[in-house]
């Protein structure tokens, strides 16, 4: 049975493997950090968030400072889907962000029906708006 853990990752409870939901490839043991099974690419943040005002003239340009932050991208090694984009100071270790108790997960899903696709939840409904304009 598969459990959808993120938009790009599932865990196969039987094989105990991380699975890429883009290409169904196995990515490594679900008892380990999923990032260990991915390709990793550090990016200069200006390649993503490019300057909007002239970087030759101004110190602050809407682009992050590469001396302060790098964007670390993680890809599926098979289909190259971008699974995570982590913002870190240069040199900072990546987070072991999703560290679930696999045995507890198995026990929890033993009583649940498998899902064919992720459960999105109820339709988004905007909260009631209380501020009345023009006395309306």
């Amino acid at each position, binding site marked *: 049975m598969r*459990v*959808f853990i*993120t*938009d790009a990752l599932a865990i196969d409870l039987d094989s105990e493997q991380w699975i890429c939901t883009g290409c169904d490839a196995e990515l490594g043991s679900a008892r380990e950090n999923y*990032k*260990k099974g*991915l*390709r*990793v*690419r*550090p990016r200069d*943040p200006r390649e993503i*968030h490019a300057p909007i005002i*002239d970087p030759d003239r*101004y*110190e*602050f*340009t*809407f682009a*992050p*400072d590469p001396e*302060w*932050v790098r*964007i*670390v991208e993680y890809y599926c090694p098979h*289909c*190259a*889907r*971008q*699974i*995570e*984009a982590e*913002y870190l*100071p240069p*040199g*900072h*270790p*990546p*987070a072991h*962000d*999703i*560290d*679930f*108790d696999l045995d*507890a*997960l198995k026990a*929890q899903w033993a009583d*649940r*029906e498998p*899902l064919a696709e*992720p*459960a999105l*939840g*109820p339709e*988004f409904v905007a*909260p*009631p*708006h*209380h*501020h009345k304009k023009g006395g309306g």
Partner: protein
Amino acid sequence: MTLDTSDAPGGAAGETPDEGVSEFLRDASLFLAPDKTIMENHGIEERTPLEDRCMAAESDPARLEIVRERLLAGANESFDMLESMGAAPGAKWGDCVSAIFTAKGDLSLASTGGVVIFCNLVQYPIKFINKYWTGEPTVGVKEGDVFLVNDARYGQAHNTDQSMMMPVFWEGELVAWAGATVHEGENGAIEPGGMPSMAEQIWDEGLKMSPFKVAENYTLRRDIVTFLQNSVREPKLQYSDMKVKMFTCRRLEQRIHEAIREFGVEAVVSCLRSNLEDTDTEVRRRLEEWPDGTVRHSWWTDGTLRENALIKINLALTKKGDTLIFDYRGSSPEFTNRSNNSLDITLKGMLAQLFLTYVWPDLPRNQGVLNPIEFVFDERSILKPDFGTPNAQSMMSVFTSWSVAQVSVMKFLYSVPRKYTRVLAPWFNMINTFLFGGVTQHGEMVGNVCADINGMGGGALPDRDGQHSCAPIFATMADIGEQEFMEEEMPFVQLVSKKLMKDNQGFGRQRGGMGYQMILALRDSPIWGFMLTAIGSKFPNVPGLFGGYGCPTYPLSRISGVDVFEKMQSDPASFRYSIEALMNERPFEDGEYSTHPMFLPYALAERGELYMIAQGTGGGFGDPLERDPEDVMRDFEEELVSDDVAWRIYRVVFDPETRIVDREATAAARDDVRKERLAESLSFDEYCAQHVADGPPAELPYFGSWDDPAMVYAGSRDRYFPAGAVNPPVIMQNPLEAKIERLEAELARAGRG
């Protein structure tokens, strides 16, 4: 030096076995500081004998639901009163709340609209009043009394908010409390507007109202009102909103009394208590549905509002069974002479808002939601500073901490089969707007904040884009006000207002809601100044989710040495209607163009010079390469993205004239990017070996843990301490002194050359 009486026995006489000792200690207390036993308990109180009796007498859920709806209608009615009558700009756009509390002080029922964090924090001053003033012969708590508080350390989000609290009696017995809170703005601090980034000591933060009585027999004491008016820049606002909040509380009291007359006191008290217990039970049931485990996430704020610094907020969120533990250890140490510290209670209150708005919006809005949740902080950290440490700009750390929690909670939520709302990428979280102070065109002195604080972009969802400049993270029902109303009262004009800024986008398969730009200028005032109190000019404020990107960074742009109103008369065609065009095309020859971080200490403005900022965008969701090309084209058509972003980020091949997408070419181009990704990436082990360092870059002012949450840096690599034991503490240099030192060193070097 501070005096902490938290270990001194309190409460009504006769509470302890040795009444004489207790009374002696109470009388010997020099100062009733915030009580640790109150401030460190965010859970619900034990049932009182009254609650036991009432719950035994009335437990029919259908009847209690009717009572609850009746009381909620009263809370909503009183909230409408507060919003309609409140004089503060904040009240006008919903930065306020009204609520009903139990007799013990627990938040039981907040208005449907309004800011949950405000009333969640009012539990603390009510409990202080119950404990210290009820039995105090010089104060007492009687029907018709009204109390006021603004000191965050006794229980507020920050000192610019003022909360009023009124005990509700029935047949001589205290049965509930009514409360009303407004972000008032001006509070007499070192800078106008109530949120002073220049505050280096708590004494720079303006009024420090511990919970105290301001009205008896439903009548404000004019001597006290006068004292408060005399302590702030807006005496009219202080008086009028005290009246507004008091009458809001009176309406709540009236509705509670009416409910008691109709349903009985047992039903009302039982309802207020059941709200809390039922919410606690339901939250525990829902937490059981989450996977067990830990999600870790860190983020960095990039400034103290006086200087740029890299300040870590570190979270390990652990869920086991029906309990959730927020462990923020390893976050930055406190800044003893800066205002960017947040009290732990403030963060807890914000997290209540996270659950009640973004996770379980169907739950009743009360503090029972936090009852199954535990928190761990380092002492003397940026999220649990010492009593004497400033906290007036707590938003700089609490909003980041909130977003770190939002990301972490979403990573737990995604796999849960039954959801109560949708998973969401991070909402933008920073107060990108101007504060102001000075004399208006009507001759009045004011100090407050623009409602544009409420224009934060929404996060993207799995199946749809985020909403543009939608609502602040702390009040999803608030709005951005009417600019024309503001301009009637204030002497500045927003020449460009509510215009979305191109390419200011959290990229993703679904993109974040975008932020608008605002360009404003002073027009008619003898003396006027602006402030800006935000961060995120070097390190973005929020990430994306599951492969989506976060927001970009934001500068303050200025054009000085020009009167744009004169230009509009003499050469109207010279004006440009975007920051990008004004700064890149430089249409005013005599103007001085500059950029700055998003913090600006209060500075006097000249007529017609331009101040320009943009609101932030919410995070994107999923791989941007999977964005439907038609969605990219829609954004292109609406001038939300440039052709550069359409190609560089989304890799869409299209005809710029017709906007017709070449699907085959797009697919091929995207495949090329995928090949490039694999070719230019490393294995995880290779990445760690080549790019992970054993500490922060030596040239960066870094605060907080690196790889070990038990150890924190305090500004440099040689200042490395066990968390909670930074000694000497962090004391930042005056930025002007630092600048003078730099300039003197330059002069000295030039002299030698």
